């Protein structure tokens, strides 16, 4: 789960990390008022759950009230990578003389939290990683020890020579690690972290992502979620134990397991078809899940055929078959269905399906080719 820059900085503030003076605004009028209060110059920044705001024209410096108004006017309502800008952050201009990058994330290889720091702040860190990977210093944090003062110092000396700044940085890095733990974050990032003209470390920007698996114990974080329309559908699916991602093809897919779902999409594409979605009905399925899944697939008007590919493990094929029969009884389904069942209780599942005169196929290749043929009819 992602939150906005201003929300990340609110969390930073709570841990006494210095951030810019700023106000969230939903209209040009509010931007004018905020600018009057904060004083010129200000920076007007789009608040959307997408990276690359600057490049998209979503961040503008305003030296006059006229410029602030124009910035608000052009940014509010703008589309950035499919996200509509509904609010902007108006931040007081800050004078600074150097920019840095600091971030924490999960490192799969060391199975630990990793701290990243770079003197090349203010640019997209992915680009630094590509062009100049040596400019990013990485430190694995031992979960038993946490962010010790000596480790924080080691990192700080990579960025600063002035010991007054090193001392501030040690405090900041320890707080950032604490925030990461306290909120079950998956990413905490300050880019850029700046040294102001009066020698203070300040978070000019902030970014936080969270571990979806831990939201159950982070109610305050979960409350900040702002899903888009597509994401709402995905969340509704998730609540029923399904993972749904809408794509733009014509073949509705219902599969159990993420890997098999991806492989099914790959095979459809291989034979020249286009999947309408990724839909993983997960394990331990009950008939109700299948009904919910059918409803989801049928709500997408692009879907011309439904391909069901189940390999039973923890999912029982007879459960899927029962759910499917109930679903078909309850709803009007006027598009063809291609079914493949194997694994746990497959015989029973196939018996139920055949009793209702629904066609089944034996292999994934066969299922994909049949689905493509029917979609093109």
């Amino acid at each position: 789960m992602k939150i906005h820059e201003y929300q990340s900085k609110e969390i930073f503030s709570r841990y006494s990390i210095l951030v810019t003076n700023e106000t969230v605004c939903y209209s040009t009028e509010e931007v004018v008022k905020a600018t009057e209060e904060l004083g010129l110059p200000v920076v007007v920044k789009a608040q959307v759950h997408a990276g690359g705001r600057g490049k998209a024209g979503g961040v503008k410096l305003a030296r006059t009230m006229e410029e602030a108004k124009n910035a608000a006017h052009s940014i509010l309502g703008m589309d950035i990578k499919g996200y509509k800008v509904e609010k902007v952050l108006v931040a007081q201009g800050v004078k600074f003389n150097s920019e840095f990058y600091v971030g924490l994330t999960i490192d799969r290889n060391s199975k630990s939290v990793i701290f990243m720091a770079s003197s090349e702040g203010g640019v997209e860190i992915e680009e630094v990683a590509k062009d100049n990977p040596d400019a990013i210093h990485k430190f694995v944090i031992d979960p038993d020890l946490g962010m010790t003062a000596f480790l924080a110092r080691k990192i700080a000396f990579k960025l600063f020579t002035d010991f007054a700044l090193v001392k501030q940085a040690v405090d900041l890095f320890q707080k950032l690690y604490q925030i990461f733990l306290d909120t079950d974050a998956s990413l905490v990032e300050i880019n850029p972290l700046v040294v102001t003209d009066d020698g203070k470390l300040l978070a000019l920007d902030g970014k936080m992502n969270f571990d979806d698996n831990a939201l159950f114990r982070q109610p305050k974080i979960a409350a900040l979620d702002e899903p888009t329309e597509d994401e709402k559908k995905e969340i509704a699916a998730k609540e029923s134990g399904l993972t749904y991602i809408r794509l733009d093809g014509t073949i509705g897919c219902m599969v159990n397991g993420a890997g098999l779902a991806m492989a099914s999409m790959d095979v459809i594409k291989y034979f020249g078809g286009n999947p309408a979605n990724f839909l993983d009905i997960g394990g331990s399925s009950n008939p109700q899940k299948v009904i919910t899944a059918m409803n989801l697939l049928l709500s997408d008007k692009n879907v011309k055929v439904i391909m069901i590919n189940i390999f039973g493990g923890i999912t029982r094929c007879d459960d899927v078959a029962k759910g499917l029969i109930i679903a078909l009884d309850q709803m009007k389904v006027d598009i063809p269905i291609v079914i493949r069942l194997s694994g746990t209780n497959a015989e029973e599942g196939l018996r139920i399906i055949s009793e209702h005169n629904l066609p089944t196929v034996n292999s994934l290749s066969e299922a994909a080719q049949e689905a493509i043929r029917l979609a093109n009819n």
Partner: protein
Amino acid sequence: MSILINKNTKVLVQGITGRDGSFHTSKMKAYGTNVVAGVSPGKGGQLMDGIPVYNTVEDAVKATGADTSIIFVPAPLAGDAILEASEAGIDLVICISEGVPTLDMVKATNYLKKKGTKLIGANCPGLITPGESMIGILPVDIFKKGNVGLMSRSGTLTYLMVSLLTNSGLGQSTCVGIGGDPVAGLYYQELLQMFEDDPQTEVIVLIGEIGGDAEERAAQYIKEHITKPVVAFIAGQTAPVGKRMGHAGAIISSGSGTAAEKIAAFEAIGVPVARRPVELPDLVKKALADRK
């Protein structure tokens, strides 16, 4: 021979009285897995399908000598269950639970490393040594004893791959589902080495998917350490960028972790990669033939 488990493995089930725990315990037992105990706090003293249930892992280990534990408890409790198993002296922990918080796994994997306990998962289907022991939720009918060692990040995709192998007459030494989470227990490198050292295994199949760089690192490891033939498959060749495909680990971020990169990494070191699941058996047969 096989890796990790065999007919002598003594299995303990944590969460044996739950819906999934009880269902799959019966399946494991029916397959011949030596299930010696269950744990369910507050239900100690009961019998479940003839298996004694204990309140703590420590009690169960003392009473039965269990050396391997499989975990079916709800995700919020799974991290603690893993720690409990390790602390009680279990050698191998298999965590089936899906949706375990990442920081819980950071804590657990770190502790287990210090204790020398092996972990598979979380969010995995378990493992099987065909004809001897199945510890997990795998549909046993598709497996057959043989000499293919298989490891996979996916559950159901593994079943499809295994059934294709079995139907082509290619049996398996041990099949391991390592799980799809970003922080997990045993991974490709450790398992590659185990299969390399296992006399029964003659060819290794690695089933990966998009996200992260574990496959690229596995390719590097194969180049440096593995002499047996390896065949691979990567799911998610057509997955869109920035979308999380079910597994927390399966996400392509800003052009890295793509299937194309992973396939290229394997092919660069001479590991053939099946483009579709159905191509796998022939590639395995060819790898075996070329070796001889």
